């Protein structure tokens, strides 16, 4: 019997990196683990799925799931999988898809859901899942306990857990499941995706990120930030204030409602360090801050700081970084 059902979202034809992280999260709970893979032509993918540390892999093939674009169909399929397998816990990554699918599934099943969790464990007495999640924009952390209904739908923030190691010798059992879907379930029609032109390293994958905030005062200084990012082989990011002002594309926004980054080095310039911004960079190993206000919150989280006007500090910093990197 399935105890923990892990939703295996796809990315570019493979498994989404968050899936391995969800398996790790599930290892902390009691009970058998099953992955559910949904789509069409899933042979390769389900084989990859069996190499993760799970007991079973449910394979849900349906031609309507081919494009993986219809959230409505995804939710409908998952609802049917849950009714068939009656899991105690459902784990979903808080991805663009997951953060909508999770709540919709929960409300459809009439059960509880916890969004954007950074920790989960099982209460020893009740056996129920207890989660921790940042609330109030990261100003506080709440622990929340599920009531009696199953499944307990837990949506987990990516990049909190290390991914489980793949082991091809594992060979978990593959179990095909059948779902009934028809196109009338697709209430929202997808027309197209339009990508914004952002050059260089993807923010989320970058080992170095250089970001600007309202304090840099306009769009032009972003070219200096790009120059620095180029030298360091990193990516450029921004605070919401800088994005809202139109100085940077919104896809560069770091924070609670933007990208989550986990670089080795995160250099912030003219960013105050509001909790909603910090929510997106708490996984950065070393934060460096340039800010003219010595009391700015960013210095509470930073490892290195310079207090002063960025326009005097940044140029010499860039020159010195270039010298040190080439010399």
């Amino acid at each position, binding site marked *: 019997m399935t105890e923990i059902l892990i939703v295996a979202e796809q990315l570019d034809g493979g498994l989404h990196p968050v899936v391995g992280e969800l398996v790790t999260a599930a290892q902390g709970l009691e009970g058998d683990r099953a992955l559910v893979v949904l789509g069409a032509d899933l042979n390769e993918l389900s084989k990859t799925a069996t190499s993760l540390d799970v007991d079973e892999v449910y394979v849900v093939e349906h031609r309507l799931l081919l494009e993986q674009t219809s959230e409505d169909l995804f939710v409908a399929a998952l609802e049917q999988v849950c009714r068939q397998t009656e899991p105690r816990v459902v784990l979903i990554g808080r991805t663009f898809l997951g953060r909508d699918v*999770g*709540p*919709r599934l929960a*409300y*459809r099943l009439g*059960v*509880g*859901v916890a969004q*954007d969790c950074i920790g989960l464990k099982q209460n020893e007495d009740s056996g129920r899942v*207890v989660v921790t*999640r*940042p*609330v*109030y924009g990261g*100003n*506080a*952390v*709440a*622990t*929340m*306990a*599920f*009531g009696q*209904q199953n499944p*307990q739908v837990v949506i987990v923030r990516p990049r909190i857990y290390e991914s489980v190691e793949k082991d091809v010798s594992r060979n978990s059992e593959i179990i095909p499941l059948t779902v009934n879907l028809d196109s009338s379930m697709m*209430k*929202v*029609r*997808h*027309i*197209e*995706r*339009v*990508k914004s032109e*952002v050059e260089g390293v993807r923010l989320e994958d970058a080992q170095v990120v250089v970001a600007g905030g309202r304090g840099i005062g306009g769009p032009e200084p972003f070219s200096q930030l790009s120059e620095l990012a180029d030298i360091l082989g990193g990516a450029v990011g921004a605070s*919401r204030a800088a994005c*809202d002002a139109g100085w940077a594309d*919104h*896809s560069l926004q770091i924070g*609670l409602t933007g990208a989550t980054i986990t670089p080795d*080095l995160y250099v912030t310039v003219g960013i105050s360090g509001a*909790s909603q911004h910090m929510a997106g960079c708490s996984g950065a190993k*070393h*934060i*460096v801050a340039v800010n003219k206000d010595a009391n700015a919150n960013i*210095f*509470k*989280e930073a*490892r290195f*700081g*310079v207090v002063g006007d960025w326009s*005097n*500090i940044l*140029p010499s*910093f*860039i020159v*010195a*970084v270039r*010298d*040190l990197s080439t010399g």
Partner: protein
Amino acid sequence: MNIVVCVKQVVDPDVPTSAFRLDDETNRVRVAEGIPPVINGFDENAVEAALIVREETGGKITALSVGNDFAMDVMKKPLSMGVDDLVLIDDPQFFQLDAYATVCVLSEAIRKIGEFDLILCGRQASDWDNAHVPLGLAETLGLPSITMAQQIEISNSMVLVHRVFPDGYEKVEADLPALVTVSNEIGQPRYPTLRGIMAASRKSPIVWTARDLGIDPARFEPKISVTGLSIPPSLGECEFIEADTEAEAGSRLAQRLREVKLI
């Protein structure tokens, strides 16, 4: 076009952490005395979106909120921005309403308001950051749901939305009635005009209690409940780089980062 916009009263997210107080008994956050609440920022974006749609299609906008202890001058802001009606579901028993119960009350209130074509919500509330009340509402009312709109157009009884996507945007459409959540990329909410403020001051909100909706709040069983709340400690032991001039501090910073092998 009849539009319902769901707005929530929240603790001002811009208050400094130092003004934050945790109430251990109720597991709620309070702020220092005298700091007024605000309407959730994304909900003001949703009001703005509603006003833009109404400019095109005509019709009526009703702002709807569920809560208690409403600060009336705060809650009237959508009226002063230009919405037609304000409905407050105000009940002392709604203190500590969880997302599930909120969905239940909102859906009953919307049924009582009557005919609608479009429901607009914020993408998430800045207090509990749930981002699921609108999705629950759409499921309950059996509506298509589209999240994170940065642009909304209405034509031929359809809603066409540009959704914020991590590296761009996505175009989707659905038949009306539908529910759409709005993100800040839709643009700054307009400032109330003096005329708007005057008009709002003359209008009274429609206030209903749980009983008016035929709901017994005592029957709500929490599906998930808050068992603890804490303020995370800050990690930093910041090393400040100092020098005679700011320019020199810039180069020293680079040297220091080199020493610790960060560059």
